[in-house]
């Protein structure tokens, strides 16, 4: 998984609880070293183990951890990639651009095959005024994270909306599919 994902969580724990807690959580996750580069692809299992250990440390269940992470992610990216936010005038515009942003973050991966897999994880299936359908295909099965991010992005743009996962890998589908609707964006 791209290093930026775990870097957001590392930075938060390090800032809030100290570097030693990070090391402790990493040890709890069975990791010898913890990668901090945002442009390197780290082992998916290691990342997921770190997330699980962090949830344990923070005493948060998976859903709560995802909600927390979504908030951290938006804040982190708004600080480091403000242009992505200023380029999007609405939650729908941001999420429409999200697959490309995800691909740009994965562009740092050297291995073309791996890079291709990262950039192909998200795909816009359908877009219409107030409606967006996105397909997500990943062995990590982090569809809960997408739900959390959707809610957080709506909040970021002060919008309302709905999300329905019409297909889900956890239900035996090949991948996940999110059908989203958006309320009116407030005037800027």
């Amino acid at each position, binding site marked *: 998984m791209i290093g930026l994902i775990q870097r957001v969580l590392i930075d938060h724990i390090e800032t809030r609880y100290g570097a030693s807690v990070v090391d402790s959580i990493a040890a709890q996750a069975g990791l010898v070293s913890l990668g901090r580069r*945002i442009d390197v692809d780290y082992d998916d299992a290691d990342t997921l183990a770190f997330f699980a250990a962090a949830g344990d440390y923070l005493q948060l269940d998976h859903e709560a951890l995802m909600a927390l992470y979504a908030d951290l992610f938006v804040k982190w990216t708004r600080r480091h990639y403000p242009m992505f936010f200023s380029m999007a005038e609405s939650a729908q515009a941001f999420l429409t651009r999200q697959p490309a942003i995800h691909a*740009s973050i994965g562009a*740092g991966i050297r291995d073309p095959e791996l890079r291709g897999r990262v950039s192909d994880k998200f795909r816009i299936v359908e877009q219409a005024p107030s409606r967006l359908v996105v397909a997500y295909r990943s062995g990590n099965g982090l569809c809960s994270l997408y739900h959390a991010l959707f809610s957080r992005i709506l909040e970021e743009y002060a919008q309302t909306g709905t999300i329905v996962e019409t297909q889900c890998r956890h239900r035996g589908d090949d991948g996940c599919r999110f059908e989203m609707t958006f309320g009116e964006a407030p005037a800027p």
Partner: protein
Amino acid sequence: MSDASLTDAEARERHLIAEIDSISNQLCQAVDGQFEFHVHTDSDEIALQKMAQLNNFVLDSVRRTIRDLKASRDELESRVQERTQRLNLVLTATNDGVWEWDIDSGQLTLSQRWSSMLGLPHDEGRRGLDDWLALIHEDDRADVQRSLYQHLDGLTASVTVEYRIRDARGAWRMVLCRGLCQRNERGVAIRMAGTQTDTTEQRLGDPMTLLPNGAYLELLLQECLVRSPRPPLALVKFQLLNVASLFDGIAVDDAVGALRRLVQRMRQQLPPRVALIALPEHTFAMVFETDEVARLDEALEPLEALLSQPVEIDGQQVWLSHVSGVAVLDPAEPVSVDEWRHQSRLALANARLSDVGSRRYYSESLRQWERQNSRAEQLIRGALATNGVRCFVQPIVDSSTGEVRGFEALMRLYDPTEGIVAPASFIEVAERSGLIAPLWEMLMEQALPLLRDDIVRERFGGDFLLSVNLSTRQLMDPRLLDDMIAASRRHGVPHTRLQIEVTETSVLSDPIKAFHSLDRIREAGISVALDDFGSGYSSLAQLTSMPMDTVKIDRELVMNVTSLPRKRHVLSAVVALCQRLDYGIVVEGVEERETLEILHDWGATDIQGYIYSRPLPLDRLVQDFRPPKPYLAGLSSVSLARGTSLRVP
């Protein structure tokens, strides 16, 4: 300054500069147009990692875009290649050459096939439009230019023009050029491109015989006349007269096959460099480089020897008759193609009037003959336009009873300057031109009322026949019988009172067809008489086989019969033969009482001649001719009708 003495901020700044410089240096690889590299930084600075990451994203986007473009290009190239292959397949199949004219540069690009079609070397085919036009026959060049420029100017939807073009051997080929302009959004022509199809075989070949055709002859004659110095030349036209015999009762495909084999054998009899060219009406043309009659005789002898043998078709042997006409050119005398062709046509036309196998050479006397023919045609056309046909009649009298057995309707034409013109001046031309048919219809319109004229009936009785002459063309016309019956019905007279007179020459031109026609006529109740028997080369064989009722013995056999005993013997034999064969006999040209007596003694009593009456204008018949008294042996004279003193102009 050493690293140890730097503050943290200074060290960070130096680190940042070094890393940015490193990233910039890595990006320098893009100047080669290569984007297959990866930007990397070892820095822990997120900003630098972000910079490297986004640079990588841009590079990745560039690579994807290039890959997509390449895929699109490959697909387009593949499509172009596929379409090109299809187009090439079509062009190969049609055997067409391709040309492209770049309007701005004036350059013409020609395909390999375009060049090879003309046997020209393929020099990548680039040349100017004028180079192309220079190869085109000068008589066609203006048409080609016009066609190209009309389309260029937007007047026509496309270019379609056929023309003659010179090939590498110097010979002419016929080609069909098609083309279309490509125009920009303002309608301005950018280029014109199209195909060139070799139509030589279709245009310069005769589909029936597969020989070169008249258009080929035209080109050949033009080539001959522009040679300098011009060699002595002879244009020979050779006509097969009875090719129709080949087709009688034989499937068309078999007959065509036989004709093709025959012309191929004819071709083989000619010198290799002399083309045998097929013209209409089974006429063939050849051009020899000589003006010596002996050499022409020698050259044509194998051909004539071939045709002296029968052609075998479907187990049947068919003899073909031929005539030929020759126009020899004086090398020093200027002449046009039209004039040369005309001279050969005149010679051939004249040969056709002679015996089969004849060959005629053009001379000034033929020109005179042509003028006479032309005059005759004008006379006929004038007569047709002004109702100038005049019906004359000559009675056929039974000398033993004085009864009129019939009247022969004879055609005269009225000319405003020459007055009444005798058939000798026009009948041949009328028959040859086909104008005999409308003349004959006019004649019948005047003659048929004779059969229901009360005064005529009172004077000559109601049983006499009206005898009319038929030309070869009329005899072969399948509508003849119906036309005669319809004309009779229109005039309210029975068609059974008609008699037709045909000559041996007419019948022999196509005996099978003629016999069939005569059978139908006789079955309908119309009598058939063989006219002019004994003139020319009469065949006794016809007497036994021809469907007929009466033989009309020609005046040639009768003249001087009283003073020439040997001639009398011949006439006697002919009369006896006709009697034995049960034919009616009419003796023509009887002018003297002594002849009448001889014929009477032989039992030949139906007489037509001046002794009774010259041909009379129809409107003078009743007035100028009365039935004579019966011939009585021993009387010193025959009571002649008053009409015998009439002078025929």
